[in-house]
């Protein structure tokens, strides 16, 4: 049998080399790791301990034991059975084992539900790569993709691989935001008001003289972010990236909500929360089916106000509209609806990716109508400008 680099010190395996079961377990742990399971050295050792108690004949018990040991999240949990069968069932073993350590096993793929590309969403409204626009900014990423491309307008990212990486970066950026916001708030609050109870308590060790003062930290409260994303044709270069951004935000901020709109408004919070990104793409494609014609920002905002605003928009909500402002509806309606949002929410932020272009003037009727009610009007056309958004979210 082939020798593997185990990462498990040899003395811990005991009489390692000889015991075929040990070798097979180690091999299996490696296979799991190659499949993206988070398996550390300790898990490897525990797997051996589990296996010691079972014979290989008792597959069922081995399966249950290894499953709870090696899996770390629901996605891995679902994939585990297949991986286990692949490796331990004799008929499958030789033929498929090789392919397994290369590609990621996805049960849905195995059922043949998707084509090789798997990019269902791409085909529809949520297009993002316009190849005609190629060229100048498309820096070929390497170690420092972030550095090279952080100032590049997203529309110039033509390379598919680069785009994928950018998607991941954008999502991660959103997640990081939360942590930094919390930290910043804590520092900003430092030493504001004396916490009387604690001060008295601290004074005990000085016989009741308040020598050490304790300052009150107000409860850290993060804003509730509500994202309204325009996914119409005119926004197609950006919409997919903003959806990934929304996904990151939803993952990091507990009570965030996301909606997409075009000709009507659809809540996508649950869809984006799905762990598997391919499943997300598939569902988004389903949602966007059958949409056509212009954008009705006014109507969509109205339905947001009527159906959702009451429940989710409050004084700690920050509503973020992402749109280029090309509205086929009446601008008066949009103005009225934005005013209603503005009254309810803490802040209304409008992100217009076109603003990053040098020659752009916000002259579209919808944009003109919206401007008086917007607290922050920003571009968010590149990683850098997205990051700059962070300072607007600090809740004071």
């Amino acid at each position: 049998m082939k020798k593997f680099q185990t990462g498990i010190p040899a003395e811990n395996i005991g009489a390692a080399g000889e015991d075929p079961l040990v070798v097979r377990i180690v091999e299996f742990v490696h296979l799991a790791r190659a499949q993206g399971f988070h398996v550390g050295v300790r898990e490897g050792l525990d797997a051996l301990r589990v296996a010691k108690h079972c014979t290989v004949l008792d597959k069922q018990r081995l399966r249950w034991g290894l499953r709870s040991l090696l899996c770390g999240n629901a996605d891995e949990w679902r994939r585990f059975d297949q991986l286990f069968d692949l490796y331990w069932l004799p008929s499958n073993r030789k033929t498929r084992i090789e392919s397994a350590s290369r590609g990621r096993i996805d049960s849905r793929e195995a059922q043949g539900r998707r084509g090789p590309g798997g990019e269902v969403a791409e085909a529809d409204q949520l297009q993002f790569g316009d190849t005609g626009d190629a060229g100048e900014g498309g820096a070929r990423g390497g170690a420092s993709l972030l550095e090279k491309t952080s100032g590049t307008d997203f529309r110039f990212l033509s390379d598919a691989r680069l785009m994928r990486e950018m998607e991941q970066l954008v999502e991660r950026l959103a997640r990081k935001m939360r942590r930094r916001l919390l930290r910043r708030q804590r520092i900003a609050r430092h030493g504001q008001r004396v916490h009387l109870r604690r001060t008295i308590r601290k004074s005990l060790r000085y016989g009741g003289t308040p020598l050490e003062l304790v300052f009150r930290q107000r409860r850290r409260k993060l804003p509730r972010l509500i994202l309204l994303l325009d996914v119409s044709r005119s926004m197609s270069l950006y919409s997919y990236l903003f959806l990934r951004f929304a996904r990151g935000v939803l993952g990091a901020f507990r009570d965030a909500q996301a909606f997409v709109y075009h000709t009507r408004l659809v809540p996508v919070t649950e869809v984006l929360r799905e762990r598997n990104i391919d499943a997300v793409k598939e569902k988004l494609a389903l949602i966007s089916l059958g949409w056509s014609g212009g954008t009705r920002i006014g109507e969509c905002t109205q339905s947001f106000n009527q159906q959702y605003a009451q429940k989710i928009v409050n004084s700690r909500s920050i509503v973020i509209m992402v749109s280029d402002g090309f509205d086929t509806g009446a601008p008066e309606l949009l103005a009225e609806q934005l005013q209603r949002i503005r009254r309810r929410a803490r802040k209304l932020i409008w992100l217009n990716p076109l603003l990053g272009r040098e020659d752009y003037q916000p002259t579209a009727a919808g944009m003109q109508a919206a401007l008086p009610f917007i607290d922050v009007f920003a571009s968010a056309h590149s990683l850098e400008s997205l990051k700059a958004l962070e300072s607007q979210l600090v809740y004071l």
Partner: protein
Amino acid sequence: MGNMKDIITLQKDLEQVGYIAEQSLAATLLLFAELKRPLLLEGDAGVGKTEIAKALAEVFHCPLIRLQCYEGLDASSAVYEWNYQRQLLAIKIQEAGGRPVAEMERHIFSEEFLLKRPLLQAISMPSPPVLLVDEIDRADEEFEAYLLEVLSDFQISIPELHTIEASSIPYVVLTSNATRELSDALRRRCLYLYVDYPNLDKELRIINRHLPEINRELAGQVVEFMHALRRQDLRKKPGISETLDWLAALMRLNVKNLNEDPELIAQTLVCLLKTKEDRDAVTHEVMKRLVANAG
């Protein structure tokens, strides 16, 4: 990991205290008891994650200590706090006695004045308890990191007193509804168990366990209906406790068969559908179709 006999014994024990577990679940729990690693339970709300911890405590004949997490949970409410009012009183009383200051200080920072919160309580028990850390995803990252530290060292240091080492290693069960990503470190540290909605057979057995006087035919219908309902695209899928609630309601209304009175059944759906969107999604037609399919 014990042999098959142990697994079946544990399964029986669990059933006796009112928790129906499949063999695979019992096998994992047995492994958990043996490896003494924390167990992370994930799954939708209402699939009985908390129940597992409660049942385990009963099976192991040990107390259950519960720590409910929330945003902003800090050490003083999770680990320990000094009972400072009592300390103050003690100082006042002793002032008259004229005892030396050093002794007084030792006195007011003794265990007598220590309020043990769940974590400290759990590690200072004489025999291992079950420590349930409920909804860990609601707590902040800092608390998660702190918990990780306690779970690997099993000791807590109290500056005024001394470091308290665990007198027994508790069985730690963490639950998460996945509203936030947990850190990889924590996931790796734990055994993992994904709790899914029960299958038809299991749900029937749960019902029989909790409502023994139920009409068999109705129970079968209801379970089929619930499974079909969970396959619908709902915001909040009804869990097991919802099934039990609904059945109890149906029994009170003397319903023998779901086909009997659609109007009445529709009214009882409030037991299952708890958001406006879901109520709108399950229209009369949808409900009738689901009932018809449930036979």
